[in-house]
């Protein structure tokens, strides 16, 4: 393996490959920053342009691009609450409150270091598990998918301390939205209001753009001023503190990266789920769960690490069976095919050096993108100092363009607007927005997997506890639901004892 890795390194560390890696990385940063444009769209556009290049240059471009998108997307999430792509939405939750407190540099620094370390951990995990990659992919079936989705859904109860009922109401509404579109189990379409546009369900990117960015901009234009309330200096120290924070909270970083890799390895689940699961697990593991959503730096580290680690995980089903785990990987496979590489289980045998080359470019790119990003933190953070009358119209315009750029469908602009109004109403009447996002991301997966698990087991519920991973996930769900209660009880007993 070492000699192949060295061959790959020799091919990547050539002037031409590094040049294309840098170009890919810059493209990745830009499309990451533009809302709605994700790695999938960018790869689809730039992939075919690599015809005529040698495979290493093409892979360097693709790897550079994929490695940088995630950090690019976190920039707007943090600065203006506008997720660069659906997977970055989780970063908005604590990143934007930090920007409001004038700590944009801190958040960006943490995002940069968490992204690059996450990317590296993802790739290393991939290298470690290549021999057992088939087992990992096959270990997750419908019953595990359902429980994984449920594990995410139960956090609705905990995501708005003191407002549980409101959170559950919003979560219910979110589930209603999640079930719009094709009914994959029974056939036909449902709840589409006769609109062809809704057949494929609610597209996540425009919905998130509307839900996060619009309400903030309406608030900001009503209040005036700028995003950052505290107009202190954007010091480089804040940024370096942010970089350091990822290492200080190394458990959060590691947990986020491993969740990202694992979820990335499961075909059909995707980066958005990875980022949110990483976020929720961090909230649950924290001693101060109520500090999240108000600017806890751990809430930036976990989803960003997961988001970049998932790229490594995504390669697991691809190398095991030649099937793409996500849409982004499907497009990458298209690029490989253009260069005469047949995606399939034998790809790793026939094109070992190229695969290691790709892995290496992914790693280099996630590090380089963060370094370049860090150099840009100061000017970027100035955005949070801009006055509302300049910022609001620009952000609204970019949001509309982003909603359209996602799939070039005009209906998505309307959709972003509708979700913007919903988001504003939620804020206005003091309902949490997060449950809507959780339900929207996980609802369809939960429903479909539940129906499939029931078909597989012939209607027996035991399927959720008899399979080892299912049983483990089930136990985690029970723990997530009962732990806060037990903790309160223990605390109460403790204080009673102290009093007596």
């Amino acid at each position, binding site marked *: 393996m070492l000699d192949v890795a060295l061959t790959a390194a020799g091919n990547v560390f050539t002037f031409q490959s590094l040049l294309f890696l840098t170009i890919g990385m810059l493209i990745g940063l830009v499309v990451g920053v533009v809302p709605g444009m994700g790695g999938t769209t960018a790869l689809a556009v730039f992939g075919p342009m690599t015809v005529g290049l040698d495979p290493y240059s093409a892979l360097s471009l693709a790897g550079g691009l994929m490695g940088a998108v995630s950090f690019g997307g976190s920039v707007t999430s943090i600065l203006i609450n506008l997720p660069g792509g659906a997977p970055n939405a989780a970063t908005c939750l604590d990143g934007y409150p930090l920007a409001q407190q004038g700590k944009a540099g801190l958040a960006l620094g943490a995002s940069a270091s968490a992204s690059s370390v996450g990317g590296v951990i993802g790739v290393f995990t991939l290298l470690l598990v290549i021999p057992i990659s088939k087992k990992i992919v096959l270990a997750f079936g419908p019953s595990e998918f359902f429980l994984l989705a449920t594990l995410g859904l139960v956090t609705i109860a905990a995501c708005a301390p003191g407002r549980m009922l409101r959170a559950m109401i919003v979560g219910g509404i979110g589930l209603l939205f999640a079930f719009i579109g094709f009914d994959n189990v029974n056939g036909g379409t449902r709840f589409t209001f006769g609109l062809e546009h809704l057949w494929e369900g609610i597209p996540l990117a425009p919905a998130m753009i509307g839900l996060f960015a619009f309400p903030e901009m309406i608030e900001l234009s009503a209040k005036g001023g700028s995003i950052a309330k505290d107009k202190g200096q954007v010091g480089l120290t804040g940024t370096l503190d942010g970089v350091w924070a990822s290492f200080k909270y190394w458990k959060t970083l590691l947990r986020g990266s491993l969740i990202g890799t694992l979820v990335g390895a499961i075909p059909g689940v995707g980066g958005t789920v990875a980022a949110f699961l990483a976020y929720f697990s961090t909230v649950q593991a924290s001693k101060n769960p109520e500090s999240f959503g108000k600017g806890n730096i751990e809430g930036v580290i976990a989803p960003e690490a997961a988001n970049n680690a998932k790229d490594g995980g995504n390669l697991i089903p691809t190398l095991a069976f030649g099937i793409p785990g996500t849409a982004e990987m499907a497009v990458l496979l298209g690029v490989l095919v253009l260069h005469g*590489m047949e995606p399939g289980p*034998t790809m790793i045998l026939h094109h070992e050096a190229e695969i290691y080359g790709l892995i290496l470019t992914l790693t280099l790119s996630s590090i380089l993108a963060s370094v370049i990003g860090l150099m840009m933190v100061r000017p970027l953070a100035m955005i949070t100092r801009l006055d509302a009358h300049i910022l609001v119209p620009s952000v609204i315009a970019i949001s509309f363009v982003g909603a359209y750029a996602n799939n070039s469908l005009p209906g998505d602009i309307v959709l972003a607007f509708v979700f913007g109004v919903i988001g504003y109403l939620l804020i206005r009447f003091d309902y949490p927005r997060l449950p809507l996002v959780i339900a929207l991301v996980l609802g369809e997966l939960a429903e479909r997997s539940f129906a*499939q698990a029931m078909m597989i087991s012939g209607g027996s519920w035991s399927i959720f506890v008899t399979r080892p991973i299912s049983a483990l996930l089930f136990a985690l769900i029970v723990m997530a639901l009962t732990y806060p209660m037990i903790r309160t009880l223990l605390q109460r007993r403790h204080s009673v004892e102290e009093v007596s």
Partner: protein
Amino acid sequence: MNKLLAALTTCVGMVTAPVAMAADFPAKNIQFVIPVSPGGGFDTYVRAVAPILERHLPQSVNIVPTNIPAAGGARGAAQVYRAKPDGYTIGIFNIPGMLVPQIRGDSDLQYDLKKMTWLGSFGQDGYGVGVPTASPYKTVADLKALDRPVKFTASGPSSTAYSATMIATDMLGIKREIISGYKGSNDYVLAVIRGDGDAVIGPLPVMEKFVESGELRIIGTFEEKSSVPGAQNAIEMGQPDLSKLSVGRLVAGPPDLPPEVAKTLSESLMAAMQDPAMATWSRESGIAVEPGDAASAKGILEGQFNFYERYSKYLGPAN
């Protein structure tokens, strides 16, 4: 004399103008609509052929692959159907994928495949029956002999994979139960390997990937001559009609495309598909291309219409 010549030239120019327009085709970029998201098989074909097709057109213009992934492909198909019949909008069509909604009568379907101008075909993938390698069932007859329903994995009931499973199991006399809802062929073939079901009916190229990785065994192919060693073919299974179950990749333009324009597009497409560069790509990527001309595309479409109209009761709920 000069004036006379000039007048003559003008006259000739006027008479030949419409012909000249057709001969000028293409004068601008051609949009190649892909009615699905980037990344799938259909997308790959178009993106592979586009640069080669550019070289075979009489005038040098760009072929612009455009993904329109909405309403299960119906939006993209409608966009080609409604386009100006000038040859600057063409599209790739999944047959029977786009044909089943038309027979089933899906709501608001804004295209009619029978009226479109068919230009060529990238070929068809056959279907087959697969079981996990460790499965005790060695032939289709083994599945038939079971005294319980055989569990098949497939995508949703409105999909062609589901219809194909219904039709094939009926023809073969296999008692079935379908575990539905998987998203696409990779997903439902992987599902049967994981043990979600007993067997799967799916496109052969998808199943062959898993055969290569050692997880799947193809026990029957719905072809007249089996391409998989050791697997029974449609005739050996006693159902030659099974070979009608396939996934075709056909290219069409809007209805009433001027014959000269259609001829130029069709011939250039054929030349591109037969280009050595395409053959090299096909060999290296392992993706088969069987070039078919306009007539063969139309023939495939008509054959599929007849077949699925006969089995319309299996086409699932309309969208």
